[in-house]
Each structure stands twice: as C-alpha cells, then as structure tokens.
C-alpha cells in the first residue's frame, strides 16, 4: 500500500524540474518541453487525489479533469509549435532571447 | 484440468505450488510467473518469425509465378537460417555524423512495439499475457511507439533519403491510425467492453459477418500501418532506396526486417481475435488447447490473404494514399459506427436472426453506397481532367525499293 504523500512528492519534484527547465533554457522548444513536464506533474496530482479521495464514492471528476488537461496540452503544443515554426521561418532563430522586437 | 486439455494453466499451478513451497510470498511468486510469461511471449514470436519469413518468400514466389527459395534444405526451409547467419555476422557500419542514441534506439523500439501487442491477445480462453480492460486502446498505444522508432531512424541516420523516408513514413502511420481506431470502436460497441478477452468471448457469431464494413476498414488500415504493399511507400525500393532504414546493416537491419514480418502476422492475429472470433470454435471452451489451434488457423488464413494483397497490388503515391485515408476510410469508418449504432439499438439484443441480418444488410448497403460514391467521384474527376490530345496513329514511311538505293550509292 502506497501512502498518498509519495505520489504528491513525486508530482512536486517533477513540477519543480519542469519549472527549472522553463526558466533556464533559452530554446523555445525546450521551454515547451518544460511546460509539458509541468502539465504531466499536475495530471499526476489530479489522478492521485481522485484515486484516494473520490474514487471510493464512484465520483469520476478526477478522470474527466485529467482528460481535459490532456486536451489542453495537446492543443497548446500544436499551436505553440506552429508559432515557433512560423517565427523560425521569419527570423531564422528559435532562441527566446532573440525575439525582442517589441521591446521598449 | 488435465495436462492435455489445458497445459498452460497446469504448468502455472504447478509452478505456483513449487515456488510457494520454497517460501516466497505470493507477491513475488506472481512477479516471477509474470516475468516467465513475458519472456515466453517475447521469445516465441521471434522464433516464429523464422518460419514466417520462409512462408512469405515461398508463397510470394508462387504468387509471382516463380519458385521462391528452394536450394537450402527441402523446399528451401533452411533459407531463413542461412539468412540469419549472414545477418548476424555482418559488420555494423554506423554513418559519420549519425546520432548514436537515436540510431541505436530505433530498431529496439520498432521490434518492441510489435512484441508488445502479444501481451494482450487471448491465445485461448485461459492463456493470455494479461487481461487489461483497455486492450483495444493498448494495441493502438503500442503501435504509436513503433512510429517513434521510425522517426528516430529517419532523424538519426544523417542521410537525406532516410529523413525523407522517415517523414513520409510517419505521416502515413499517423494518418492511418485514425480509421483504425474508429473501426475498432465497432466491435467494442457490439461487445460492450474494450478488453480483448471479452471481445473474443462475446463472438458467438464472428463480427466479420455482422460488421463487414468495419472489418474492411480495419483490414486496410492495418496493412497501411504495417507498411506493406500497396502502402509500402516507407521502403519503396525503386524510389528512395529502402527509406528510413537505409543506413542500417547487420543485426540492426535484421531487427527492422523482423519487425516488418512479425507486424504482418500480429495484424492478422489482432484481426482474427477481434473480427473472426479469436479462439472460438467447437469444443474450445472445454479444451483450451483447441482454442489456440483455432486461433492459429484463422490467423494463418488472414495472413495468407495479406500476402496475396501484398504481392498483387502496385504501390500508391503519397498523395493517393492520403486521399484514400482522409476521403475514403475515415468517413467510411465514421459512417460504419453511426449505422451500426443505430441498427444495434433498433433491433433486439443477443444474437437473434433479426439482429444479424439487419446489421449485415446495413453494412453491406453502406459498402455498396461507398462503392457507388467512389465510382461517381472517379468519373467526375476524370471528366474534369484536361485531355491534351487524342491518340495519334504512328506514320511509317514505306521502305524504298532496293534499285533506287543502289543508284544513290553508285
């Protein structure tokens, strides 16, 4: 029997690693990878709470919420990568620091 | 349950008793049994591939009016073993600039994806790797891992042809997943569960007679997922010289080769389980070993049919392939789901004659309507195509008489 805290600790560690990836990496696609990791950590959290607190009463909230997170992640990745490719075609770079034409 | 009727369960019980007698807890005994089962289900299909390659080459030769391998052993039976020895001893030539991780990981993923499917197939009423309640989706998920292997092979080879082949291959594989999943929804609807054990067990009448439209869509999509003719753009020898596996030699290429042939057999196995009734047959409930034999017979019949399709049809172009997928198969699969759902709800449940006839008639009607629509589309398309010129008669000059030629020469 695995206590609830183990899953939550794993999810917190993965979230922090994803956050570190988003903040320190310069390549836009690497930032997207960090965002995917954060979304997965949130998903682990959702399913853990569903299993331990909601599943015994037959409530399916957690699974539906996790499915919505999947949908949002897929949509956001597709549009984000389309944007990155479009930017690459114009500016020949995907480094996030170089995209500063709107800077004051 | 005696040894003859049900050998696998007999052995499992015996092993459980022996291992429990050694003092291991039941959790570890289960773990060891699962590990043994996994090893068997991995090694078995790989050994089966040796026979499959021979069957494919011999039958392919016969389809093409030639003999096939017939030198090494009677009827060329040991040809595969000779080929295996050759592939084992070939040198691994890694291209300069190839990414080592990607290059070496691709064949592993390709073979692993195919072997993973064997874990959920019910080989008989009691022999199966595991009985997860999302077996149908699991097959799709494992197929997705195989696509990852293809794109890694294309990316990691540092070769333009491999890259091009990899791109086209992944585009084809991802596109054909859609009608495959939609066609797999129809047996799930009819049997009420996604687990393969339940689908195989619920087929008192084989689903290919109830929903031939979905069976046809799944068959075509499975051939396309495998990368066999007429969808073998992935390794079109005459166009892109072996496609994404051009830089592989030795056993790494052997792994891709094995994955290709085993995937055909596995597709036939999945089709037999889901649409032909799997291990169902006379006496399969009391004697599970008979169920295994029935499944193998059905699989071999479907496999020979797959070979027949492979060796007779020419290859599709990439745009024709995409057109077939998005304009024909996906709408047909969605229409099959709609029609089956409506007819299923309107007729009384169970396997009564009314339900069988209604489903069969509606599906065949759907196929006939699709046939007519495709014919109309093709005729309209041809009418719109510009005709550059009609056929010209070839004008041949009459031969000069011999005397004139001699006059000119003199």
């Amino acid at each position, binding site marked *: *029997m*695995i206590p*609830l*805290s*183990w899953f939550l*600790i*794993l999810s*917190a560690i*993965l979230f*922090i*690693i994803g*956050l*570190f990836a988003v903040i*320190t*990496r310069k390549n836009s*696609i*690497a930032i997207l*990878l960090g965002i995917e*990791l954060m979304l*997965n950590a949130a*998903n*682990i959290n959702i*399913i*853990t709470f569903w299993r*331990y*607190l909601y*599943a*015994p009463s037959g409530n*399916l909230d957690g*699974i*539906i919420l*996790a499915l*919505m997170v*999947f*949908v949002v*992640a*897929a*949509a956001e*990745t*597709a*549009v984000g*990568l*389309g944007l990155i*490719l*479009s930017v690459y*075609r114009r500016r020949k*770079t*995907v*480094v996030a620091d170089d995209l500063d034409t709107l800077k004051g | 349950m005696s040894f003859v009727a049900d050998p696998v369960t007999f052995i499992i019980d015996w092993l459980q008793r022996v291992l429990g007698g050694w003092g291991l807890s039941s959790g570890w005994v289960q773990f060891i049994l699962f590990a043994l089962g996994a090893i068997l289900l991995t090694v078995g299909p790989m050994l089966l591939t040796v026979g499959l390659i021979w069957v494919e080459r011999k039958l392919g030769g016969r389809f093409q009016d030639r003999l096939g391998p017939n030198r090494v052993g009677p009827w060329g039976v040991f040809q595969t073993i000779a080929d295996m020895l050759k592939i084992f001893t070939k040198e691994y030539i890694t291209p300069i600039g190839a990414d080592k991780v990607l290059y070496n990981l691709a064949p592993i993923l390709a073979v692993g994806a195919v072997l993973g499917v064997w874990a959920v197939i019910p080989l008989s009423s009691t022999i199966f790797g595991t009985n997860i*309640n*999302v077996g149908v*989706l*699991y097959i799709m*998920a494992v197929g*997705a*891992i195989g696509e*990852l292997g293809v794109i890694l092979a294309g*990316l990691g080879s540092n070769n333009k042809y491999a890259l091009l082949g990899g791109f086209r291959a*992944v585009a084809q594989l991802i596109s054909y997943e859609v009608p495959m999943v939609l066609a797999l929804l129809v047996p799930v609807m009819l049997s*009420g569960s996604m687990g393969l054990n339940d689908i195989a067990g619920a087929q008192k009448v084989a689903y290919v007679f109830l929903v031939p439209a979905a069976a046809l869509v799944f068959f075509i999509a499975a051939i396309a997922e495998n990368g066999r003719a007429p969808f073998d753009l992935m390794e079109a020898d005459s166009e892109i010289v072996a496609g994404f596996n051009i830089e592989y030699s030795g056993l790494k290429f052997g792994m891709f080769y094995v994955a290709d042939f085993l995937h055909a057999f596995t597709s036939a196995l999945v089709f037999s389980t889901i649409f032909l009734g799997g291990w169902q047959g006379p006496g399969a409930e009391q004697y599970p070993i008979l169920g295994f034999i029935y499944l193998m017979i059905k699989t071999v019949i479907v496999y020979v049919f797959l070979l027949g399709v492979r060796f007779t049809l020419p290859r599709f172009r990439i745009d024709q392939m995409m057109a077939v997928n998005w304009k024909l198969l996906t709408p047909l699969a969605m229409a099959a789901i709609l029609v089956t759902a409506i007819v299923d709800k309107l007729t009384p449940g169970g396997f009564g004659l009314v339900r069988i006839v209604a489903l069969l008639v509606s599906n065949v009607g759907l196929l006939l309507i699709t046939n007519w629509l495709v014919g109309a589309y093709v005729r309209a398309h041809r009418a719109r195509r510009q005709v550059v010129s009609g056929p010209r008669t070839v004008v041949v000059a009459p031969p000069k008489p011999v005397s004139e030629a001699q006059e000119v020469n003199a």
Partner: protein
Amino acid sequence: MTLMQVIFLANALVTIFAALMMVTSRKLIHAALWLVLCLFGVAAVFGMLEASFITIVQIIVYIGAIAILILFAVMLTQNAVDDSYKGNRRWLMTGLVALLALGGTLLALFTWPKVASLSTALTTAQLDIGLIGQALVDPQGYVIPCEGSSLLLIAALIGAIYVGMERKGEEK
C-alpha cells in the same frame, strides 16, 4: 516494503532521473527523448493508480502524438547553437529558488492531516470504462466539458494550420 512500494520507488527514480537529464541535455533531440522516457514513467504511475484509461490515453496522446510533433519541430528548426541550462547567467540562483519552492510546498503539504492516508480497494464495477463514456455524454454529467474540449480542439486545429501555413508572396 511491499512489492508495489518497491516498484513505485524504482519507477519514480527513473522518472526523476529522466526529467533531470531532460533539463541538462545539451542537444535538443536528446532532451526530447528523455522527456519521452519521463512520460513513460508518468504513464506507469497512472497505471499504479488504477486509472487504466488515462494510462493508455497518456501513451497515445503524449508519446504517440505530442512527442512526435516535438521531434518534427526539433528537426525543422535545427540550428548549430547548443542550448544548455548554464546559458542563463543566473541558473544557480534559479535552482536554489526552485528547491526552496519545493521545500515550502512539501512543508505545507505535511501539515494536512490526510496526507498519509492509504488507498481503499476499488471494486471492478467502479473501474468500468463504460462509466467514463456514459459520464462524458450525460447531461447531468460532463457533456459540457466534452463539447467544450471538442470546440477547443477544432479551434486549435484551424489556428495551427493557419499560423503554420506558408503564405505565397511573403518574403522568406
């Protein structure tokens, strides 16, 4: 230490190792592959939580579609500059702040009384996949999120095609 706890610890170690390697990889393709391994680990965690449908959907959607999309994008935007987390001048400070955030979160977590609760066994009737399907189209259930997510997907599809389209006549 029961068998499930051992398996969970092994899986968690692999997942965290893969995530760390993803952050510290210099080549982007390797980072994408480490992310794929991490996603496999997350799918295994879902399997341990007896959410079998979510496990399979994770493999199909993330590894079978999103990872391949990322690999395509990495291939199409290959530049010679190697990216590294040390490229950011303040990476050490960021790491320390991240660790502090982690510590704070875990500290706050352990003040919750139910944190060490164990799971109750679920019956097979509760694990039926058909319940999810029925809930997704039930008017008293989750039909509005289902339809909303389909609208979101159509919008994302059209948006991605439009954004990524090469327009004729534009200067390259």
